[in-house]
C-alpha cells in the first residue's frame, strides 16, 4: 500500500473510493489520517463537537473486510464524513449546539446517519453548530457551545450559520463531506462563506427523523461537499421514503444528471439588479463574471423577479410559531436562560406570544407565495442568483438584523436604492416554497469565497446537478482550498 499523503484530504468521494478499491491504502489508514487531522485542526475553527475515532476505526475495519471480499456498496463506501451535531448518534451526546442539551443522549441514530452507515460511509465526528440552529434569532456568531465558527479562509471571519462546523470542516479538508441542515439558509450560507458546494434538497426528500426539529414545515437536511458530483452522490444515499418522518415525500433521488434536457432547451431566470445594484465593487466583479460564465453555456434566459410578499415576516411567524411549540418546555422551565446568546433567549421567549391566528395567517400568505412561485417556474426551469451579496463577516461582529428576525442566518441588507426586488429574498422565499437549491463557489472578494445559487422545481435536483457540474468543469473554483496547518 502506498499509504496516505496530504493530497487525500482534498480528493472527491469518487476518487477516494477508487483508491480504496485499488487498495492504495486501507480504510483504517484513511480513517486514522482523517481522525488525526480532524482532532488536530478542527479546534482551530471551533468546528468539532465530538470525535468518533473509536467507532470510525471499527467501521473502517469492517469496510476493509468488505472490500477484501469484493462486497462493494457504492462510492461512499469507506469515505470519511462529519455530521452536524443536530443529528442523533446513539450513546454519545447530541447537544444541538446548546448548553441546556449538553448531556442529551439518544439511543437510535438519525435516519440519514443510518442510511450513510448502510452505504459504508465512515462517520468520524459530530460538527459544531449555532445553538438550536439559531431558531431564536442570534446576534453573535459565538452563539454555540464551541464558540464562533471560524472560517478556514480567514480565521478572523465567521464560517456562517447554522451549519458552521460542517462548513469549516469540509473547507479545511478535515472531512470529505458533511451533513448540514437548513430551515432558512443554514446550508447555503456556510457553504457560500466557506467556498463549498451545498445542496438544499426539496422539502420532504430527505428524512429528518432523529434530527432536532426547529420548524416542522421548513426543516431540510442536505449535503455540504467540495463538488456538485459529491453532493449528488451523498443526496442519492440519504434521500428516500421514511415512515419515521411524517413529512417524507416517499420519493428518492438517483444521481443521473446525464438525463437532464440539453442546455439549449433549458430556460434560466435571473434578475439583472441582483448582479449590480447595491453590491460592493469587489463583490460585483466576480459575481458578474460568474453570471457571464453561465450565460456562455447555451441556455435560454428570461428576466424574472420574486413576487411582492413580506417573505421575512412570513417566515419569522411560521418558524416562531412552530419553534415556540417545539421548545415550550425549554422556555417555560427557564432553562432557555442557559443559552449563550441573549438575543436567542429573548427571541425564543417572545415566540410564546405568537397566537394561532398569527400563525395561520402566515401559513395562508405562504399558500399565496407558493402559488406565485409555482407560476414563476412555468416560465423558467431554473433561477440563478448570488447566494449571499457579501462575503463572510467578522467572527466577533454582531450580525446586522433586528432581534428574533426572520431567517436563521441574517438576511443581507437591501441594496441602497433597489429599483426592483430581484431575487435577493431567495433564502426565505424559496424555503417557504420548499424548493431545492445548489450553491457553488464562484470567485473571491477580499480573499474570501463567494457563492452563486441555482434553484429549481421540487424534485428536480438532477437539473441543478447537471448545470452545476458543467459550471464546475469550466471554472474550477471548487478546487481551490485554504492553507491549513
Amino acid at each position, binding site marked *: 500500500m502506498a499509504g496516505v499523503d496530504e493530497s487525500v484530504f482534498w480528493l472527491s468521494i469518487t476518487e477516494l473510493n477508487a483508491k480504496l478499491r485499488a487498495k492504495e491504502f486501507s480504510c483504517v489508514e484513511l480513517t486514522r489520517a482523517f481522525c488525526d487531522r480532524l482532532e488536530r485542526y478542527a479546534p482551530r475553527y471551533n468546528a468539532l463537537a465530538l470525535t468518533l475515532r473509536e467507532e470510525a476505526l471499527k467501521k473502517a475495519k469492517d469496510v476493509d473486510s468488505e472490500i477484501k471480499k469484493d462486497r462493494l456498496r457504492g462510492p461512499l463506501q469507506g469515505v470519511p464524513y462529519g455530521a452536524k451535531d443536530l443529528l442523533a448518534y446513539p450513546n454519545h451526546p447530541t447537544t444541538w449546539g446548546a448548553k441546556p442539551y449538553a448531556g442529551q443522549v439518544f439511543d437510535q441514530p438519525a435516519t440519514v446517519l443510518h442510511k450513510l452507515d448502510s452505504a459504508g460511509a465512515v462517520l468520524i465526528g459530530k460538527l459544531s453548530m449555532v445553538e438550536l440552529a439559531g431558531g431564536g*434569532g442570534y446576534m453573535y456568531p459565538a452563539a454555540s457551545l464551541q464558540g464562533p465558527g471560524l472560517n478556514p479562509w480567514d480565521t478572523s471571519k465567521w464560517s456562517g450559520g447554522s451549519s458552521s462546523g460542517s462548513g469549516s470542516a469540509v473547507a479545511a479538508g478535515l472531512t470529505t463531506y458533511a451533513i448540514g441542515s437548513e430551515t432558512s439558509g443554514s446550508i447555503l450560507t456556510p457553504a457560500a462563506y466557506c467556498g463549498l458546494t451545498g445542496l438544499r434538497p*426539496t*422539502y*420532504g426528500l430527505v428524512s429528518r427523523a432523529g434530527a432536532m426539529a426547529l420548524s416542522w*414545515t*421548513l426543516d431540510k437536511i442536505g449535503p455540504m461537499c467540495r463538488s456538485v458530483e459529491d453532493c449528488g452522490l451523498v443526496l442519492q444515499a440519504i434521500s428516500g421514503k421514511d415512515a419515521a418522518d411524517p*413529512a417524507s415525500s416517499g420519493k428518492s433521488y438517483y444521481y443521473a444528471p446525464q438525463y437532464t434536457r440539453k442546455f439549449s432547451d433549458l430556460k434560466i431566470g435571473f434578475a439583472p439588479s441582483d448582479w449590480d445594484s447595491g453590491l460592493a465593487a469587489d463583490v460585483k466583479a466576480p459575481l458578474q463574471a460568474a453570471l457571464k460564465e453561465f450565460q456562455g453555456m447555451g441556455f435560454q434566459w428570461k428576466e424574472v423577479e420574486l413576487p411582492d410578499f*413580506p417573505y*421575512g*415576516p*412570513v417566515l*419569522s*411567524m411560521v418558524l*416562531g410559531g412552530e419553534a415556540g411549540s417545539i421548545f415550550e418546555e425549554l422556555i417555560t422551565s427557564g432553562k432557555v436562560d442557559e443559552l449563550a446568546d*441573549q*438575543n436567542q*433567549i*429573548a*427571541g425564543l*421567549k*417572545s*415566540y410564546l*406570544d*405568537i397566537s394561532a391566528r*398569527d400563525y*395561520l*395567517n*402566515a*401559513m*395562508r*400568505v*405562504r*399558500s*399565496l407565495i*407558493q*402559488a406565485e*412561485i*409555482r407560476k414563476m*417556474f412555468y416560465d423558467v426551469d431554473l433561477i440563478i442568483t448570488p447566494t449571499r451579496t457579501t462575503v463572510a463577516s467578522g467572527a466577533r461582529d454582531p450580525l446586522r438584523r*433586528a*432581534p*428574533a*428576525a*426572520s431567517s436563521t442566518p441574517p438576511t443581507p441588507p437591501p441594496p441602497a436604492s433597489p429599483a426592483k426586488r430581484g431575487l435577493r429574498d431567495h433564502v426565505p422565499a424559496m424555503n417557504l*416554497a*420548499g*424548493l431545492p437549491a445548489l450553491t457553488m463557489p464562484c470567485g473571491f472578494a477580499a480573499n474570501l469565497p463567494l457563492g452563486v445559487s441555482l434553484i429549481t*422545481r*421540487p424534485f428536480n435536483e438532477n437539473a441543478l446537478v447537471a448545470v452545476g457540474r458543467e459550471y464546475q468543469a469550466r471554472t474550477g473554483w471548487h478546487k481551490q482550498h485554504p492553507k491549513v496547518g
Partner: protein
Amino acid sequence: MLRLNRRQLTGSFLAGMAAAAATANASAQAPAAQESPAGLLDAAKRNITSNRAALEKFKLPMAVEPASSFKAF
C-alpha cells in the same frame, strides 16, 4: 390667560429641566437598555408586532387556506 406666581414658575421650570434631563438620559441609555434581557425581550416582542402588521396588510379571502403542503407544486 394662565397666570403663574414666582414659586409656580420656578417649579414649572425645574420640572421641565428634570423632564428634559430624563429624556436625554433615557436616549443616552437606550442602547444599554436594548442589550438588557428585558430590553431584548421587548424588542423581540415588538418584532412580532411588526411582523403581524406586515401580514395584516394582506387581504386574505376566506378561500385562501393555510399551506398544507410545504413545497410549491
